[in-house]
């Protein structure tokens, strides 16, 4: 199995602006336009980011695309699957029945319930459509960075 690209969080540089969530929602909206996504579209997509903050420590956590992903084991329909070509853990909304066992199983709490069109699970897909994760691209302080399977940092320009 190929190891996926991963988003690394560096909480020492996270300033807690939560712009990652704003751009995640925009990227996963129908219009891909920030103002339309927020002011027009219903339902608004759920961001794939779990944001945690206590005192001055904050970080934005996305799906870790674990090598031994418990959500894969927990999924009863096979909606949660591993893409063998990239190694990423992906989620097929069509096959999801909304049992949310993945949410129960995820040790990081990064799978979220989505009540939008119908009851399904929702999580980070590393912006598979856009080639480069929106949260990484727009983080103003480079507190989240993308690394390849070797752990080498990938920059937007290189994609």
């Amino acid at each position, binding site marked *: 199995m190929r190891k996926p690209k991963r988003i690394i969080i560096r909480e*020492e*540089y*996270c*300033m*807690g*602006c*939560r*712009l990652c*969530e*704003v*751009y995640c929602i925009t990227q996963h909206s129908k219009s891909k336009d*920030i*103002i339309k996504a*927020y*002011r027009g579209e219903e339902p608004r997509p759920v961001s794939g980011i779990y944001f945690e903050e206590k005192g*001055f420590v904050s970080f934005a956590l996305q799906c870790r695309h674990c090598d031994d992903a418990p959500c894969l084991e927990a999924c009863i329909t096979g909606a949660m699957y591993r893409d063998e070509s990239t190694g990423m853990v992906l989620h097929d909304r069509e096959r999801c029945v909304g049992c949310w066992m993945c949410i129960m199983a995820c040790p990081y709490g990064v799978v979220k319930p989505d009540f939008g069109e119908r009851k399904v699970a929702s999580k980070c897909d590393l912006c598979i459509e856009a080639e480069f994760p929106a949260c990484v691209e*727009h983080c*103003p*302080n*480079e*507190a989240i960075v993308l690394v390849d399977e070797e752990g080498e940092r990938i920059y937007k320009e290189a994609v």
Partner: protein
Amino acid sequence: MAKAKYRPEFIVQRDDEKCIRCQVCVRMCSNDVHAYYPDTVISDSFKCVGCHFCEDLCPTGAIAIRRSEPHIKENYHWSGTDVYNIIKQADTGGVLLTGMGCDRPYKDYFGHIVLNASQVTNPSIDPLREPMELRTFIGGKPEVVIIGKSSEPELRTQIPPQLELETPIMFSAMSYGSISLNACKSLAKAACDFGTCWNTGEGGLHRDLSPYAHRAIVQVASGRFGVNKEYLDAGCAVEIKIGQGAKPGIGGHLPGEKVPEEVSRTRMIPEGTDALSPAPHHDIYSIEDLKQLIFALKEATRYEKPVGVKIAAVHNVAPIASGIVRAGADFVVIDGIRGGTGAAPTLIRNNVGIPIELAIAVVDSRLREEGIRNRASIIAAGGFRSSADVVKAIALGADAVYIGTAALIALGCHLCQRCYTGKCNWGIATQDPYLTKRLNPEIGARRAYNLLRAWSLEIKEMLGGMGINAIESLRGNREQLRGVGLNEVELELLGIKHAGEAW
């Protein structure tokens, strides 16, 4: 009497059609300007300091910070600032404080000096095709070259210790305490990567900065904070700070609230106590006293490092600099009226000192007249805005320049002049852990490095245009400068001709 009401300095304009209620501004403003109420964001313009952090972070560009219109009746003599300063002082009875450099409209001499270029009679040089030397050595230069008498070539001249810089631009003294550790790291790393120097300021050397100490000029100031044997040994040069351009004749005061554990450890003072730097050095009341300290530091560093003295540019700057050179300093730093600070009384910052352009020219002339110019390098500081200012300063006689404000702007500073509040939204002039993490030293170092690179490229272009291929050949080469709109006294002090006069 009715209590006067303050007027906001800035107006926070929010384009409600663009605002998506993401609340980034609410979370980010350290001055609590923005507040979220169910489905609306309210901005209190009174609290805005004009740092533009929210404006730059707003993902939809919904926020615009505008200067508010003058709110008192127009009066040539009594500006709104004057009136509201008086109201503020009548309210508080206190000294007005500010940060950064003088912002008053004194004559900008750099703006009245133009550079030369080669045409027909001398060839210009293309720096992209031919080598161009920006390497600069800071330190005393020997009087004569002594060559051995044997048949083998042999140089017997003893050369005093030198700082080798890849560009004549260094980062000026900004202490850990006045700026955040991340800001220090950014500048230190950029200086090391580029091959120039940074300066510790009077804050000691934090242990996280020790990897960059080989390019650090360590400062010894009137409070002697953080000075010990290891500190002196760690740096590449030692600088005795007598004064700074933003507040000549004034000491420093870092309030106890800004002395948390790390600052206390670095400055070697108890946690939570005020760090007071006296206005004078209490052991220096004459050039002879200064000489003792210079040689004490030279002894302590085994004569292996240049030891310099930093003074503010004041009326008597030329004779003082002459005394400093005669006292044995290897370099003299002159900080002009535009020099910045983390905190200074507003009126001192705005009214004390002289412009750096004149100070460089008179110091260089004086040292040349006395035949001691070779004994020390001149480093100019205070308000260098571009590579053109650097080139002009070097042509006036400086060996290198210090940039402080320009370097902080590269790190994000928007010159709101509220450094003294410790609430810097950009994470620069603060010790608040919520705010310091906003400056990622990786980004900071990259941006500061880029600034050095860009200015160095521009300096090479300008040198090439003049037909000069080494910065050494520009130093004190005032024939390359011409004044525009300067009177006779100014031209004489600057030692330059008026535009239109040939060689």
